[in-house]
């Protein structure tokens, strides 16, 4: 178990600061201009790989990221990660 403790983030950060970090991450990454920029970038690559290069798997990955950028806020809020 000592080995697994190495991966426990709460060993380094306090529970509150760890939670605050994620709150900050979700409030900046999924809510604001950064989300919009990343969303459009992912969407472009989704089209590029899927439609232009016909690489369905990569296209779907980028589409999933683009979807996450757009709707990530409500998904994580629903899951209780972000408030």
């Amino acid at each position: 178990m000592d080995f697994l403790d190495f991966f426990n983030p709460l060993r380094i950060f306090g529970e509150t600061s760890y939670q605050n970090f994620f709150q900050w991450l979700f409030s900046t990454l999924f809510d604001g201009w950064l989300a919009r920029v990343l969303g459009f970038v992912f969407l472009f690559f989704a089209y590029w790989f899927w439609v232009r290069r016909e690489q369905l798997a990569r296209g779907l990955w980028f589409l999933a990221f683009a979807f996450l950028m757009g709707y990530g806020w409500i998904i994580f809020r629903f899951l209780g990660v972000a408030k």
Partner: protein
Amino acid sequence: MSKGGSGSSGKDSGIYLPQTSEKIKNLFDAISEIEFYAGSEEEGDKISEKFFTTKQKIQFMEVGFKAAFISGMITALLAPIMVGVFEKLIPVFGSYNPTIIDQIYVFLLTIGFSLGYGIFIARVGKCYSKNYSISRTMVNNLMIGLTAGALLKAGFIFLLFHFIYFNILIPENVVKWLVPLTKKGFFHLSVENAEKIYLWIMEFRKTFLTASWFVVFTSFLLIAIPYYKILKTIIKEKRVKQVENL
């Protein structure tokens, strides 16, 4: 694609034909093949459509069908969410009041694949010349598959979304699901929250009707773009011929 020994359409015109028939796996292969044959026919004589085997015909139809069906499914899945965003029922980028940029983003995320495929497939339109034989047949087969896929998908989604609206998400059903959840205290669901969820579902179910018609529109768009390009090539050729005859 190998461009081995020379073959011809009956005459000794020295046109290079592909010797092996590699499997057409995707749209990219199909369009490349059409462009290659169109290029050969532009440089030399018509290549008999007999070289376009039954197996290849099926493969071209299959590729067109798959392209229409898969891109349409993504549009179909995202369409109710898009309508939900426009109706301010679902937030995008953390906001229930989407800006014009947000609306463009959601619209592109939903319609983009049908539009992208349509524009990409429209490239074959320029290969639909009267002077070509095999290229025209290839384009015809691809378009048959594409049209069949788009129509089938549109019909299926139209019926499914109407079924959801008229039979699944009806008030009686939603109450039937929510009451036991509230009684058993699942997800710590209070009566007030259950009421909110009920009202939200009642608003959201309406999006399925709009979404179903939207999917029909995108399916039409997917097939209309390549057909428009084909028609443009035909008209352009007719005009050139008329000028030549003068």
